């Protein structure tokens, strides 16, 4: 009897062990496509670039160890680095809030149940659907060019007396890119819409009973209930906009006078136009640390403004 029970237990254990082994095998088999890519396309390149950022390297000849000189040069002797950092920050600080405010405004507008609501939403979304493409960048360059439609409208309305080069003038060039970014409000708008739908109607009903006006309802109910979604959008949009490249490359090429030289464009120029791969790797690591710090800052700030229902008010 005792013996039987013991073998019974050990049999069960053995079976469990076998199942565990099988699960481990199957699990790693299934996540292999991701794990392999993670190691080969992320960890190894990152390690390589960390090493190369301390070297002088032009791809053709082997890298030469130069210690911290890349970083020292970047911080002390590279005005274009500071310029690109400044441009990128100005761009992000203007583009992200503009895009998100516009997205939230439209989402609130479209939560109202109206006829043709779906059609409106579709039409408003389409520009964002195509926004990242080369076709739109090419179009934007013409739209705001000296002979573009924007000038043509302003001239015909008598607001402008002479054509103005919105894209080529130092004071407006970056704005032409910011407006393009704001125009791409579609994805955050849809995310806001889905978030707004999840706010329980009972909250609005009780607010109405209490006699709250529209502004009070919006600031006391809508915004706090939506804050996790706002948080998500802020994080994703900030990271995305720091990485802007195609638009600046096609529309302004960093001109005039580096006024639209966004960071990735500068990194691209250093790496591929000047063939300074070591220097470019150092630039990439600096950007990585800057973005990590900003993301961490947004996460750390979240307890002060993001409201999670489960924690209670």
């Amino acid at each position, binding site marked *: 009897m005792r013996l039987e029970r013991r073998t019974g237990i050990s049999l069960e254990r053995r079976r469990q062990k076998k199942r565990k082994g099988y699960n481990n095998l199957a699990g790693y088999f299934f996540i292999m496509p*991701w794990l392999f890519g993670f190691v080969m396309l992320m960890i190894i390149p990152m390690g390589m*670039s960390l090493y190369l950022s301390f070297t002088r390297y032009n*791809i053709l000849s082997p890298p030469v160890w130069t210690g911290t000189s890349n970083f020292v040069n970047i911080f002390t002797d590279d005005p274009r680095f500071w310029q690109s950092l400044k441009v990128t920050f100005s761009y992000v600080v203007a583009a992200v809030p503009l895009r998100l405010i516009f997205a939230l405004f439209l989402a609130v507008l479209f939560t109202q149940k109206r006829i043709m609501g779906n059609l409106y939403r579709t039409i408003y979304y389409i520009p964002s659907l195509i926004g990242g493409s080369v*076709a739109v960048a090419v179009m934007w360059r013409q*739209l705001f060019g000296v002979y573009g439609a924007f000038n043509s409208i302003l001239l015909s309305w008598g607001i402008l007396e002479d054509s103005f080069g919105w894209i080529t003038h130092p004071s407006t060039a970056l704005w032409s890119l910011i407006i393009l970014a704001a125009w791409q409000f579609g994805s955050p708008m849809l995310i806001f819409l889905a978030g707004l739908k999840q706010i329980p109607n009972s909250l609005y009903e009780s607010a109405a009973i209490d006699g709250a006006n529209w502004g009070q309802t919006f600031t006391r109910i809508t915004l706090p209930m939506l804050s996790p*979604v706002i948080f998500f959008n802020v994080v994703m949009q900030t990271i995305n906009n720091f990485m802007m490249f195609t638009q600046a490359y096609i529309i302004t090429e960093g001109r005039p006078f580096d006024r639209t030289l966004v960071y990735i464009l500068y990194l691209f120029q250093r*790496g591929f136009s000047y063939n300074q791969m070591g220097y470019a790797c150092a630039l990439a690591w600096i950007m990585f640390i800057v973005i990590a710090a900003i993301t961490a800052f947004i996460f750390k700030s979240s307890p002060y403004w993001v409201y999670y229902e489960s924690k209670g008010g």
Partner: protein
Amino acid sequence: MKKLIPKKIMGSISYHGFVIVLGFIVFYPVLWLIASSLKGHAEIFQSAHSLIPSRLHFENYLEGWRGFGGITFGRFFSNSLYICGVGTLGQLVSASFAAYGFTRIKFLGRKLWFAVMIATLLLPAQVLRIPQYIFFNNLGWVDTYKPLIIPQVFAQPFFVFLIAQFIQGIPFELDEAATIDGCGKFSIFFRIILPNIIPALITSGIFSFYWSWNDFFTPLLYIQTVHKYPASLALQLFSDPSSVTNWGAQFAMSVLSLVPVFLIFLSFQRYLTEGISTTGLKS
């Protein structure tokens, strides 16, 4: 009561009026691009803001299609289609595999790897461009499609996450029942999970296709021979500083390059909007 109805109608009129006027402004650039692709060369600049061409210049499309140096846009579009098609297919297979592994199999280190994957969601991809380039260059992959396709085949975390979210909605009892019936992890994946995640696969497929179709930076880095160019890169050839830009032709091909994007959007709109909303909400 009499007073209430006109007020309601007034509100409705001002709502629709506002949305339509704003919508026109928002949509105007798209209409303008289409109109300009049908305008004559002089007209593009003279009456720049008008949306109605005085005469329809369909020859812009013919001229644009002719392409550069004997390589037509037919070639560029089929290049794009090849890159996007193979990449998207690989993406779907690998991402659904990984998503299933993370959500349904209890293996050693599962939580750790999942956390690592979520963390890489926040990693800006452009930071890796230079080291990846050096890596692919060492492999001799420059001027091939491999650097464009291979990274997609190894499951991007965004799609793993999206599909994993979806799999979590499938009741685990189905897996248990199948296990009792003698199914292994593989047949559970193919018989139970796969048929149930079709909507998530469609959503992921659309996103993957869009990103790959619109991607400009990656082909710009890797593709050097013109006949290997995807459409996104070929469009920029029109503005070669050494020759006079044929604006009409460039706009015409721009419009054409957006047609697949529109068609997919119109046929799968529901999947797209749901995909965007769920990835945004559930994290």
